[in-house]
């Protein structure tokens, strides 16, 4: 579904590349998390998948980015809308402001795509239910909490039925309650097995909970690619400026203190930690 072949990209007037010789294949239905320190290239990768690199930010892109069979560089943003959905950090800026209720806000993308009204109704009802917003359908979008606004942003993009959903740190500007709300929606999405999702995220505990696969970026390069359990428990994580989950840290401390035997698989989720310490 997503194919990156030797992709390098530099922002205009930047001295070092934001993406450096990146090659990766993501099959349909996979929930793929992208982790890495600030400035590692996560956001740039997200922008490249949605076509904003290079169509919005300009700059120099080499290699091939292909999403759902479309060559991003040869396409246009208008063409990509509806094929790739993008959700980013700031919930407020993702609300158009041109619609006065949650329901109308979700409809905005469908209206632009010319979806018939009857079909719009069904799709909106379904997606509001999915995102847990059904009870808020008639509320003004700006009256919602941050977590609700972010779920609205996700719903507004999902309702367009993109082939690929890209989320760029969707919870970094939310409080813990809002983050939990958003991750609950993402977990439900991961459970469907139909959606192809790329999630750039710093909160590794959530990544561990439902990602099928984890990519680690460091200074624009892909430095690790594998299952969440392997990657997140790896001792290399700290070298890339990432903090292991509290479960992994607790387990390591227990090993260092001689409470647990060395060599056991380190836990990355609460369930695994319970098993590890049992």
């Amino acid at each position, binding site marked *: 579904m997503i194919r990156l072949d030797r992709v390098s990209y530099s922002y205009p007037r930047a001295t070092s590349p934001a993406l450096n010789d990146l090659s990766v294949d993501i099959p349909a239905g996979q929930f793929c998390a992208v982790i890495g320190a600030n400035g590692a290239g996560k956001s740039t990768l997200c922008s490249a998948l949605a076509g904003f690199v290079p169509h919005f930010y300009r700059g120099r892109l080499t290699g091939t980015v292909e999403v759902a069979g479309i060559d991003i560089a040869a396409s246009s943003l208008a063409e990509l809308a509806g094929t790739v959905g993008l959700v980013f950090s700031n919930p407020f800026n993702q609300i158009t402001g041109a619609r*006065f209720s949650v329901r109308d806000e979700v*409809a905005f993308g469908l209206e632009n795509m010319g979806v018939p009204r009857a079909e719009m109704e069904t799709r909106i009802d379904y997606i509001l239910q999915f995102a847990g917003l059904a009870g808020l359908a008639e509320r003004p979008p700006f009256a919602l909490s941050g977590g609700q606004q972010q779920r609205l942003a996700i719903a507004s993009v999902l309702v367009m039925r993109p082939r690929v959903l890209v989320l760029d740190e969707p919870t970094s500007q939310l409080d813990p309650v809002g983050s939990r709300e958003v991750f609950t929606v993402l977990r439900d999405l991961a459970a469907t097995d139909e959606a192809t999702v790329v999630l750039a995220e710093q909160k590794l505990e959530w990544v561990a909970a439902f990602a099928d696969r984890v990519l680690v970026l460091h200074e624009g390069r892909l430095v690790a690619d594998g299952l969440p359990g392997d990657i997140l428990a790896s001792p290399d994580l700290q070298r890339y400026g990432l903090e292991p989950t509290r479960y992994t840290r607790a387990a390591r401390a227990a090993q260092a203190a001689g409470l647990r035997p060395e060599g056991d698989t380190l836990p990355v989720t609460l369930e695994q930690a319970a098993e590890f310490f049992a």
Partner: protein
Amino acid sequence: MSGTYGLYVVRQTGIHRLHPLTKLVYVLVCLLIGWLIPGVWSPYIVLLIGVVPVALIARVLPEVIKNTIKTAIPFAISLIIVQGLFWTGGTIVRQLGPFSLKAEGLLFAIRGTGRIILAVSGFLLLNYTTRSDELMLALSQKGLPNSISYVVLSTLQVIPRFQRKANTILDAQRSRGLETEGSYLIRMRALMPLVVPLLLGSIVDIEERAIALEVRAFSREGAKTSLLVLHDTRFQRAIRWLLMLGAMAVIGWRFYLWLAPRLA
């Protein structure tokens, strides 16, 4: 102004349910007639016949009166001072020290005030009884570019957010010891640390907003649909045509009045 839909006042009346264009055309024609028909009192007559009864039926008359007065008073005062006192020539009504109040100037001020009152109350009536998203949809269906309707609608919602953001920045700068009260000089100096973060923050916001709009297929060509449905009737269409014909007749008549003496 606390409403969800801009100025819209939620009421269940026949006026509220009318097609937005019917109300828009009606208000514009009222304005045109009030401005074009000669006579000092014509704006007031149109106001009483055209605007007040409709506002009464729509149950927004108190709001219309209150906010029209609020908006029109500064205009009225300045008109009366400038035109009433500084009219060259004319009949003196009363001597006020070195100034003399002139009848012609006073009448001119009364007519000007009437025109402003008519325009303000007309647009308030339209906005109190019409959801701005419905009005914009109606205009889009008549060929108004989507980008213009987007700008109008988002401005209505973003300005209150912008004000809140300005207040947040102001509070943040105050807590760092910025003086914002006192003489004009102090307040002028306080402006920079407020405006710069506000503008820079807004530029970032605009970039993200543009991306969000692109994601939602805003720049896609081709026919668009709408979740909102506007109810129009043949009767309302007929009324709109009649109103526009009436307006054209008034324009023609006014043109004739202007032209006739020049041809004679």
